[in-house]
């Protein structure tokens, strides 16, 4: 437990970012919901459409809603220009504000519907203008109900904001997702406690304001509002106030990482080298494959480690399988022509997808190549990471070897290996650079038909970073420097669950020493 509290103390920046994101989303939600509620109270059709839309938004899972804003904002660049951010704060803000809309709108509309007709008639009867009626009668009478809606919205928004990690917005979701990927439960608990604590505090403060409105006690309204505003101001100060001992020379470089340990380690390795050159660095962890690639292509992040086969199949939609040099050359040309992204070079190891089985199954059934699975597949369950079964490589493998498994199951990369060991899956789409393959005594089945493409790890620089000689110089020494054994050792050091477990940060320092940098 003391570890959890220690970890929570390190979350200052994440907490501040979380507070600002949630507060902005709630504020935007209020800003949209209240005028809409006023309009809805004067027009039945507006009320129906607005409430219907808000309810519909609620039915979309928060994670999907956040993810959907990436393509929406990407297409809006046609209108607002290339400067429109597609990852990070803006999409998170918009998605969460939409989410916050319903409780506020519904409570405001309900409060207006349940207002005593006699009171409204009296407001007209004494000669109030519509604006006076709104300000002097409707607003004060609706206020406690609206505050109750804002309270609900605040609790939802603070919870859902943890998911904005997946679209590259720092939040208390960062420790949760990072902890989940690296089996660091201390980090997961720290993120959960911090987020839940924040929600409780917000609920308590807004509840105070609500009681203030209901009982006509200004003191409660001011006290609740002031403390909330102080919290927001403190968050702003934490993130944007002057940092002691820092100089403003360095520009900030955003480094992306997909949601598995190797990516966290490599992002830190890159970040540490850039920091050594005086750059400020921020990490956008836990991105999905497609989001991560688009992010570097459109400049939302500056640096990303990607894999040749992933770009080849997912981004270029290629189904042929040339040798690795030709593939790399074509990818480099394609990246340069489509987005100006630079392929800096190979890191030196391959992290291919490969089908892995337990050693006992391989021995018992005499399995050595993917083709050997064919007769057996109908009785086996295959597990993969959340994107595996949607990827063109899997479809290519399935067709090349004519595989029909009994069932397919998705696991987060962390749990996929556990699932294989525990028997929840018989075969998994493993990563060949994963340290757990050796640690768990797994067998990677051969791919004689070459259905899985090559997956050399390569460093991508956004078009802007590509013009920055200092960035290039800082990262150049990594090219060709990391062999698969070094990467496996580093991955295992993060993935292991015993006392020797390292954080990605420390593992990156260790890796740098191992490869002589």
């Amino acid at each position, binding site marked *: 437990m003391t570890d959890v509290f220690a970890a929570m103390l390190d979350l200052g920046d994440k907490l501040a970012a979380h507070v600002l994101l949630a507060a902005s989303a709630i504020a935007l939600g209020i800003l949209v919901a209240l005028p809409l509620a006023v309009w809805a109270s004067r027009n039945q059709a507006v009320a129906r459409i607005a409430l219907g839309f808000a309810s519909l938004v609620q039915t979309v899972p928060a994670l999907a809603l956040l993810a959907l804003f990436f393509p929406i904002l990407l297409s809006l660049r046609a209108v607002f220009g290339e400067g429109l951010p597609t990852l990070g704060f803006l999409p998170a803000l918009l998605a969460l504000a939409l989410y916050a809309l319903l409780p506020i709108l519904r409570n405001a509309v309900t409060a207006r519907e349940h207002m*005593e007709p006699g*009171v409204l*008639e009296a*407001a*007209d009867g*004494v*000669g*109030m203008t519509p604006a*006076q009626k709104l300000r*002097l009668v409707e607003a004060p009478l609706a206020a406690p109900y609206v505050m109750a809606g804002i309270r609900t919205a605040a609790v939802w928004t603070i919870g859902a904001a943890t998911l904005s990690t997946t679209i590259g917005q720092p939040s208390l979701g960062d420790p949760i997702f990072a902890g989940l990927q690296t089996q660091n439960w201390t980090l997961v608990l720290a993120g959960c406690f911090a987020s839940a604590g924040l929600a409780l505090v917000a609920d308590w403060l807004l509840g105070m304001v609500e009681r203030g409105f209901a009982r006509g006690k200004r003191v409660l309204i001011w006290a609740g509002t002031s403390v909330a505003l102080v919290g927001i101001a403190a968050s702003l100060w934490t993130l944007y106030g002057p940092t002691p001992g820092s100089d403003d020379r360095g520009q900030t470089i955003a480094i992306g990482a997909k949601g598995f340990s190797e990516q966290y380690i490599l992002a830190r390795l890159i970040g540490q080298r850039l920091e050594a050159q005086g750059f400020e660095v921020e990490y956008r962890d836990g991105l999905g494959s497609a989001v991560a690639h688009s992010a570097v292509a459109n400049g939302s992040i500056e640096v990303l480690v990607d894999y040749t086969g992933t770009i080849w199949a997912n981004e270029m939609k290629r189904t042929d399988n040339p040798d690795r040099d030709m593939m790399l050359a074509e990818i480099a040309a394609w990246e340069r022509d489509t987005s100006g992204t630079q392929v800096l070079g190979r890191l030196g190891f391959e992290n291919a997808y490969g089908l892995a089985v337990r050693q006992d199954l391989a021995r018992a059934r005499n399995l050595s190549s993917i083709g050997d699975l064919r007769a057996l597949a109908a009785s086996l369950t295959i597990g993969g990471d959340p994107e595996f079964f949607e990827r063109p490589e899997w479809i290519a493998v399935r067709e090349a070897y004519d595989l029909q498994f009994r069932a397919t199951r998705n696991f987060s990369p962390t749990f996929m290996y556990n699932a294989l060991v525990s028997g929840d899956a018989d075969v998994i789409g493993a990563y060949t650079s994963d340290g757990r393959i050796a640690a768990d005594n797994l067998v990677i089945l051969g791919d004689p038909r070459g259905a899985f493409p090559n997956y050399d790890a390569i460093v991508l620089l956004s078009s802007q970073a590509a013009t920055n000689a200092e960035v290039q110089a800082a990262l150049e020494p990594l090219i060709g420097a990391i062999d698969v054994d070094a990467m496996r050792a580093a991955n295992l050091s993060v993935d292991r669950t015993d006392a020797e477990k390292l954080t990605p940060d420390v593992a990156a320092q260790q890796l740098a020493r191992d490869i002589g940098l």
Partner: protein
Amino acid sequence: MTDASALLRFDSTAKSYAAVVAVANVSLDIDPRSFVALVGASGSGKSTLLKMVNRLVEPTSGRVLLAGDDVTGLPAPALRRRIGYVFQSIGLFPHMNAAHNIGIGPRIAGSPLADARITELLEMVDLDGSYATRMPSELSGGQRQRIGVARALAGDPEVLLMDEPFGALDPVTRDALGDRVRGLHETLGLTTVMVTHDMAEALLLADRVLVMDAGQIVADETPASLLAGGGGEIAQTMVAVPRDQAARMAGLTA
């Protein structure tokens, strides 16, 4: 024809909702300082006729003139500030104390009332100054309607409109408040139009009784002439109710 000195004039005023005629072509003059009762069964159109004066209901055709001004030619808020309005559900603002409720009209018109005037208004409806800070939820029904009457009088209105003002009150309170309003009508020189379904109340308080049926005015008499058998069949059916009750009660004491 109509009298040029009328304070309130209905000129072929009509109101219909889709196919339903609520008020059919009413022409009527109401003199300054008169106390007029509009009596009729539910759905006879009496409330609709009343609400066309302060434009809570807009006429379908015809006009309503207040002191010679066509009411539809005035902005509704400005018009309503010239008219006191008391109605059955009272409609006190639950988040304002009695003083704020009473002073709301002058306040929104930009000339808030002094505390002394609030006290004076409270005393007009037989409440002492200590009621100023009471919230509506702390008052009885009768006390609330007293505040409602004080609120209607706060802006020195040209006309006092009352729509079933005592309908929800207990009989004792109802009688006392009726007398109080009649007294204020005299002392303040008000022009009052009261809608009621209670003929006894109309006969006792008003000096002119209009009987409405199916959107038309079917009788326009003084209480004395109604009690003497005037006003036609519908009016007499209504007058018969309190008269019979009085006779039966007289029989009980005999």
